[in-house]
């Protein structure tokens, strides 16, 4: 059965983030109180995911290298998007990620106080990646580069849990249709199955946010529909976890998120060998 390989230090897998840093990411989305630049939304999402991964792999002696992580940005150029000590690094073992954020930011958050009101809290937020918005949108080129990283990885780790590529964009490629490049990624194989491509679409086109939908009917424009169509189907065990989180799933459920939170994908990953047919 595919997607059941053990994720362990002896058999690690990789996570590749591909993030849109083009000029259009300067635009704002949201409405009312929470207006944010798209570039901020996607960099926050990645920073959060990286932190999530390091916590997930933390053991008593420190963070274990169950994953190696690459982070490609595309805009004025295509290349590693890490800031700070990891600048220009491509595939980085998770333990190094854990100890090398570029900085800790103090952020004030408004959270519900449980009694209907909101309280302001200051929290520390580790940052590996800065929001960038500059230049064109060489999406195809960046995805081709991600393909190369994944391809090298599966060559070196032929029996790994299939690598996960998470692509974050506002959807408007300037170097052609990305379908071929994404096909290229999804056709890469380990003995445990095809590499997984997830897309997070941040868009100002409005419409209802969607998390792992199984059809594109409610998606507002052709960009969203295209990204939906080039996203992998969710493997069975991930659907089980999605269902546990209250999401409706079907055979058509894909790894696509529209203007919503994507951090739950870390919760979909099983570390070590686990029986995955949970209720």
């Amino acid at each position, binding site marked *: 059965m595919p997607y059941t390989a053990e994720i362990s*230090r002896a058999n690690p897998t990789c996570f590749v983030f591909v993030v849109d840093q083009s000029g259009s990411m300067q635009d704002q989305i949201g409405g009312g109180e929470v207006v944010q630049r798209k570039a901020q939304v996607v960099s926050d999402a990645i920073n959060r995911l990286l*932190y999530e991964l390091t*916590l997930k792999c*933390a053991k008593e002696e420190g963070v274990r290298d169950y994953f190696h992580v690459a982070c490609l940005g595309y805009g004025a150029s295509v290349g590693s998007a890490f800031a700070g000590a990891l600048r220009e690094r491509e595939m980085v073992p998770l333990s190094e990620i854990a100890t090398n954020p570029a900085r800790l930011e103090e952020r004030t958050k408004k959270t519900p106080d449980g009694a209907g009101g909101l309280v302001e809290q200051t929290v520390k937020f580790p940052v590996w990646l800065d929001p960038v918005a500059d230049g064109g949108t060489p999406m195809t080129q960046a995805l081709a580069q991600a393909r190369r990283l994944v391809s090298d990885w599966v060559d070196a780790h032929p029996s790994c849990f299939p690598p996960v590529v998470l692509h974050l964009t506002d959807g408007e490629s300037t170097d052609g249709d990305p379908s071929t490049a994404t096909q290229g990624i999804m056709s890469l194989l380990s003995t445990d199955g095809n590499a997984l491509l997830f897309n997070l679409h941040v868009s100002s086109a409005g419409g209802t946010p969607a998390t792992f939908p199984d059809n594109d009917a409610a998606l507002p424009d052709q960009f969203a529909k295209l990204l939906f169509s080039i996203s992998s189907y969710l493997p069975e065990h991930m659907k089980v976890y999605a269902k546990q989180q209250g999401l409706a799933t079907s055979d058509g459920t894909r790894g696509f998120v529209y203007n919503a939170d994507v951090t739950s994908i870390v919760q979909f990953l099983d570390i070590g060998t686990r029986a995955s047919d949970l209720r």
Partner: protein
Amino acid sequence: MKYPSGADYAEALQNTAACFRDPELAGGTVQSTPLGMPRAISGNFASVFCIVSPRGKRYAIKCFTRHIVDQQDRYVAVSTALADLDRPWQVAFDYQQYGIFVQGRWYPLLKMEWIEAQGLLPWLEEHLHDSEAIADVTAEFGAAVSDLQSAGLAHGDLQHGNLLVDRAGRLRVIDYDGMFVQSLANRGAAEMGHLNYQSPLRTMDDFDQTLDRFAAWLIYVSLLLLVDDPGLWIQFHDEGEEKLLFGRDDFVDQEVLEALSGPPEFDPALQSLRSCWDADDLAQVPPFDPAALPTPSEMLSGDFVVSTAPAAASRARRTRSAEPLPPVEDLEFCGGLLLSRTSLALAVVGLLGLPLAVFLPVAGAAVAVAGLLTAVLIAVPAYRSQPENDARQSAAAELAARRHDREVAEDRLAEVQQGERGGGARGPGRTVVPSQRAASPSQHDAQRLRELEAERARAHDALQELQSTEAVRLRDALSRRQETHVQALLKANEIDRAILLGVNRSLARQLASRGVFTAADLTSVEVIDGGGRSGRGQTMVVLRSGRRVKIDGFTAANGKSLRSWYLGEVAKAQASAPIALSASETAKIRQGIEIERRQLKSAQARLMKRISQENRMAKHRAQNGQVRERQNDSRNAAAAARRLVLGAQDDLEEAQWAEQVAARRAESYARLNVWRFLLR
């Protein structure tokens, strides 16, 4: 329900005053990483944080990241059951349904005492060469499982991540999320446990008190084998693997059991694993009962027979310190009394001469000089000639000699102590790394390897032969096919229709009476000229069956025409025979060969794998023997060094004693000076 993620919890924990309602936790301090972020330890269902309460007590807080069905009921039931049990391996906990406030909601948490401990894998890796510690943990694990078993409970997820070893080396079993308790029987399982520890037969429907059997045997046996032979870790556990010695693949193909067999002390342990792995049904997995296996301490004492230091140390030592030193004696000169008295008298006389010299200078001086001079002249040689003087000198010499001895003994002690310290690096406490060289397999192993090698060589030869076999089979098939063709054509030629030959009907009947109807019934025709009753010769035919029969009424001429007809028919038939096999026939043969080739190949591959495994094991066993030998060697060397030190200490003590005795004697004699000689 969507549970918060690890990062959600970590964020909430940055403000403990707001996220907890438990007074011991609210306002407590979260243990953090060097970066100053909350430090987490995560499993697949939860992240665990360490909180120091305002009053300084440490707690482990388990925050759940995945939903567990009926969690509260489960924890209440488990809590009740474990409270009754009250065993040292347990970790006390308090399940709080509204324990932690995250993003506007309360979530459950599990508050536990914080255990300063290591997970079983990192602990084992650090303690591989401390077989005693492993033996203790093994015994404690066995006891914990027995405790659960006899209370009708099952943990449900026994595996390395849920077994901690605390600072005192005691085993602690944690993570009761999936526990079976009688009162939960109808709730079903909450999880299926770690794949590398559970029977492939286990399903979500299996939830009863036998749940742990498979994992318990697996863990117990792994640990037990490691007590005997820590090298197995290097052999069977690749770095970073999420298992002890065995993983899911092993349960299925079981080759590992073969590879491990050899040491007789392993037999019962491997037998237990086999009975777990062979089970067709979970119910067949035997209850956990290690009584048939060697105990961890038996494994430990096993064949580690070494002569160790304590035996040498127990050698009876003289304790000089308890003995009193001889006193400093008040000695007197024995002889020369007359002379000493005389010289004393003369000296007195001489001294009397001194006041006399005031009045009679010359006479007084003469008396004084003469008296004193003679006194000296008599006293000195007399004193010198006393035997006590020699004795004093020899006492002094003796003292010098003893002092020298003591110095030598001191140096010697320092030297052997140095040696012992230096040798300590090779001592028994140190990790002994198996060397890759010169470990030659035992006779038994070598024999088995030779047999396997021979088997492999046979498979190899068979594979080589297959090449020529293919050609042979193709050729045979072709000739069979040609033969059939020829026979078919020959059969189609009935002899009585062969009028052309001049074989008339009655002759044809003769042939028929011999069973020859067509050319296909013959294989050859023999003609004997001039023989027979008529002198016109005879004809014999060889039938298909190989029988040679005479055909009545056939003259030589008849025979010749029969023969030429027969040969002609054969030649015609052969000329039209196929010269090659059809594609499908060839393919069929080739496929047959290919199947054989694959079978041979995979047999060969299996053998190769087996050989390399056996080789590794043999080498490993040999190395292990070496390691033990070297461990023993180094233990013996250490013991020898210890013995040397102890001996040198004894010698030194003895030398010091002798020196002190000599010093006393020397001191006694030192008092015997010339004054003492005179003034006694």
